[in-house]
């Protein structure tokens, strides 16, 4: 629709534009500068935010997209858009916006490297002692030799369950492979109640039994009626 005569513009629209504050005008300006595809994403994110089934997490996810699309929180990046992931991880210890966090981050990175080094050394030693090749270990773990090689050359950090799988494959205790594993297990057991999202079979059966039980019968008796004098 093209409007040649300004009088054709509804007065409500004029009033709406005039009532915008600076922040709202800036928001609209940024939106108008976006490409059609990005504008469409922004509109669909507003729809997500207003959807009746949207969770709080989804609302945050959608808001993060709108902020990103409209450059509402401009931050230093690597290149025209986004961040180089490995570089961002290297920089986090030295460029964390909260100065007090930097030593904590650096300490954690050192700890992880130390854990990975100890793991690799221990597994290599056991492989030598037991005369097992990486290929044989991979076959016992049902994974590729390349995966084993990456973990032993400290290019890839094993998942916790991989450590357990490897320990079984090597017939050793998991704590023989990974430093601090016992401490982690204790912490996990403390945190377990929070992780209890699924019922066990026994719990489910007990719940079924309880819910199918007939309601408790409450015995009542009529109150004596009062007779007015």
């Amino acid at each position: 629709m093209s409007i040649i005569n300004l009088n054709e513009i509804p007065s409500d629209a004029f009033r709406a534009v005039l009532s915008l504050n600076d922040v709202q005008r800036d928001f609209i300006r940024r939106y108008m500068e976006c490409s059609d595809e990005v504008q469409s994403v922004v509109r669909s994110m507003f729809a997500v935010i207003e959807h009746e089934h949207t969770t709080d997490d989804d609302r945050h996810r959608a808001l993060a997209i709108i902020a990103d699309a409209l450059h509402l929180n401009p931050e230093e990046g690597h290149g025209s858009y986004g961040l180089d992931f490995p570089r961002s991880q290297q920089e986090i210890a030295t460029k964390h916006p909260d100065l007090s966090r930097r030593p904590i981050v650096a300490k954690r990175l050192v700890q992880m490297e130390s854990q990975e080094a100890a793991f690799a050394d221990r597994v290599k030693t056991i492989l030598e002692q037991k005369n097992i090749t990486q290929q044989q270990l991979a076959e016992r773990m049902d994974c590729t030799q390349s995966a084993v090689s990456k973990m032993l050359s400290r290019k890839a950090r094993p998942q916790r369950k991989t450590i357990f799988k490897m320990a079984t494959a090597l017939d050793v205790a998991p704590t023989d492979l990974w430093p601090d594993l016992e401490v982690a297990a204790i912490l996990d057991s403390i945190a377990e109640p929070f992780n209890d999202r699924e019922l066990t079979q026994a719990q489910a059966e007990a719940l079924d039994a309880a819910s199918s039980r007939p309601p408790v019968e409450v015995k009542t008796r009529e109150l004596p009626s009062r007779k007015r004098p």
Partner: protein
Amino acid sequence: MNEPITGTGCLEWRLRMGRPAFRDFQRLVPRYSVRSELNRQLHKLRWWNPDEPWVVDLPWNWVQPTGLAELFLQLDDGVVHTVRVLFFEHSPNPSVPTLWILGGMRADEALGSLRHAIYSGRSTIVKARAD
């Protein structure tokens, strides 16, 4: 990218990430000690091979029909047990094969239509802006 790329066995991908993905992870895993574990695991995506079902020791799947992929990783955290990480391939410069990490959620959260809209929206912005 719905069609699997073949012949990428020895390829090492460049990994990139948008700001919304960082926000996802900060909200999902507020404790840095645990988030650092997640970040460390994500480095494995450098060796993603569309022809293999595992990235080192992490399972992954296509999310049809979006062309996105999901990677599952377990955390040693009592609150978030398994995380689903959404990623996709977009290489503005074909000589630098690039994977984009779009964000993450708990694996027990359903990937319904609203979340498809969210992550597809993120991939649209990457395609529109990355060069």
